[in-house]
């Protein structure tokens, strides 16, 4: 069972309280009606599914109820960091700094 840091509760909580909610940073096109079938396929079906660092959404379903984002290594299942929904995707420097922190 994972231990997940909820950025809203600012605490690590057991995975049971959370629900995984798929890949992060996939924005719903604002003018969704006019996109092509291919674009819709990309938006709705195609996923990076990386082996390694993944950006993903979680919801603290049985906690504060908030959706948030996480960076996790899908090989070790270790979290690099979590951050509030709507914040931009962290860049490499930020991730490196974070993983240093968590490895100490």
């Amino acid at each position, binding site marked *: 069972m994972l231990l997940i840091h909820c950025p809203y509760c600012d605490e690590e909580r057991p995975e049971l*309280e959370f629900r995984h909610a798929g890949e992060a940073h996939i924005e719903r096109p604002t003018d969704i009606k006019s996109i092509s079938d291919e674009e819709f396929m990309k938006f709705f079906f195609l996923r990076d599914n990386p082996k390694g660092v993944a950006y993903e959404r979680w919801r603290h379903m*049985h*906690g504060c109820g908030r959706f948030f984002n996480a960076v996790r290594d899908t090989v070790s299942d270790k979290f690099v960091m979590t951050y509030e929904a709507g914040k931009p995707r962290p860049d490499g420097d930020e991730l490196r700094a974070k993983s240093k922190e968590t490895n100490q």
Partner: protein
Amino acid sequence: MAKSEAVQPHYPLEGRLGGSAFVSVSPGEPASRLALRARPEALASLSKALGVKLPEKPKTSTRATAVKAKGRRAAWIGPDEWLVIDENGADLLAACDGVDGVFSAVDVSNRNTAIIVSGAGAEATISAGCPQNLSMDVFPVGACSRTLLGKTEIILLREAEDVFRVEVWRSFSAYAFAFLADSGRSPMM
């Protein structure tokens, strides 16, 4: 039946009692409850209207200090979510009437019911099904959190070192009660 004569309520866990020499598991008294959602700008006026300061720190709760709001408390549930409980059954929805600001107040008095778990084995009894760390240094008196008990969601509030209030949705209360009664048979403290 005369129209003005209200019918009598039936409470979900009426008559139940569970536990052992180490812990008592019993239904809480009926209370009124408000599910409150609000933008930060509305907090001050809502706190004032309700007579209890809405906590802004995660996993905490506050109790009303004003005499008129005695028995009332507010629990932080999420960054814009609170559960307000009034043990005297006050009309909390009415209290929010006319308050300025953008918020949502919904009466959930009958949605939840409370189970009181008390005694030296209280923490151990709840820890049979709650994956959170409930030790005093991490979950002190006054701490409050939505979490899980076995297969049901609860809101857990620590009222004293040995007393917890378990708020649970009505139709899950029989399960939660039975769970606590089972884990309370021989909690290892």
